[in-house]
Each structure stands twice: as C-alpha cells, then as structure tokens.
C-alpha cells in the first residue's frame, strides 16, 4: 500500500499524482480523484486563508488514510492539502485512490473527504473583495453527519 500525504502551500497537479500511483502497476483498474476548489462566492471572495496545525495536520490525515487502507482493498492513496492564501478557483485539496475495482476506490475517496472535513486540523478564513476581513468559515452539521455514516460499516 502506497500512502502519500503532503501538506503544502504550493499548488498540485492531479494528473502527475495519478501517474505516480498508477505507472508500472498493472493491478489497478480504477482511479478516483477528488479535487476541492475555492469557490468565488459570486465574486464576493478575494482570498481564502487556510490556517493549519503543522505536524498534526499530516499525522491526522495519515491516520485517516491508514484507516481507509484497512477498510478497502486499495493499491494506493494520495492526499495533498494546501495551506496559506488560496485564490478563488484555485485548488485546496486532492484525494486520489486506486484499486482493482471501482467500488473500493469510490468509497475510500468519499471516506477520506468526510474525515478530512471533520478531523484534519485546518481552518478557513474569508478575505472579502471589498477589502475587509470576513469571518472564519463555520463547520457544517452536514459534514459531521457525513462522517457519522461510516461508523457502522
């Protein structure tokens, strides 16, 4: 099992990450990627600032990836999460899962995103187009419910 976790301010390249996980690996039949982008909130958002807890961010995402690897027959998992200032339309997070079959790859990618949302120590603050600092983004109950659904499976 090939698990890669990176916390970085730089952008990432989904295609390059897919290639790294699949090249020379003839067992893989399914690759799922999830890319989370910064929405522009109809033009009101200037920048999204992502604060994180260095050290714990990587450790916690690795724990989530390890858990995914015990639940599904995966060949590889890559998670990249950016921090710092993110422009509207830019990438925030990438999850790539590979498996022999599509169900494992899909479910593991959803599981990873659900737990990234509720357990990875990142916080988003909005900076508005009118020059003011907006609010810290509030956590959604729907994200907690999404994570809850994996408890009994």
């Amino acid at each position, binding site marked *: 099992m090939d698990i890669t976790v990176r916390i970085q301010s730089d952008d990432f390249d989904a295609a390059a990450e897919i290639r790294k996980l699949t090249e020379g690996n003839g067992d893989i039949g399914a690759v799922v990627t999830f890319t*989370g982008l910064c929405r522009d909130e109809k033009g009101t958002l200037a920048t999204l600032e992502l*604060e*994180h807890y260095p050290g*714990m961010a990587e450790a916690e995402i690795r724990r989530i990836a390890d858990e995914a690897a015990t639940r599904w027959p995966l060949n590889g998992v890559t998670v990249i999460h950016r921090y710092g200032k993110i422009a509207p339309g830019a990438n925030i997070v990438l999850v790539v899962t590979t498996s022999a079959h599509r169900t494992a790859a899909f479910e593991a990618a959803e599981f990873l995103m659900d737990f990234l*949302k509720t357990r*990875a*120590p990142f*916080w988003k603050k909005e900076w508005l187009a009118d020059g003011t600092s907006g609010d810290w983004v509030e956590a959604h109950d729907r994200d907690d419910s999404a994570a809850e659904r994996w408890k009994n499976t």
Partner: protein
Amino acid sequence: MKILYFAWVRERIGKPEEEIDLPGNVKTPSDLLAFLRTRGPEYESAFEEPDVIRVAADQTHVEHDMPITDAREVALFPPMTGG
C-alpha cells in the same frame, strides 16, 4: 505545558501558543478550559462556549473528559473546516 491556539481561538487570546504551569487539579481538557477562563477577558471570550472547543493532546484528538496530564503539548481550536 505548551498550549497552542488556532483560528479564532488564537485571535481572541492574541497569541498562537504559550507555556503554562498548570495547577495539579487540571487533569482533562474540561479542567484546562475552566482554568484558562480565569486568566482574563481574552480567555473568557475564546472559551465562552467551552463545548464547541476541540482539543488535541500531542497532536491527537481527545475528548473533553480524557486525561491530558502526560501530554507535552495541548492544542485548543474551533471545529475544523478543512477539505
């Protein structure tokens, strides 16, 4: 003990981290939050709703009633909004 603050907890307290000598009766995150609230209005403001605060001991999530006396660092922060 090293205490870290993130996001609006950090903003309200006005610093990202500090080293604090904790009294012996601070054994859990609940105890810690109650103790910190006595340190001034900035702490009172940060922890006015202690139930919403999330806690990590040595970079691992912990519940409010778990022991943290052996931790080297404890972090206090709002619900996470990554992903």
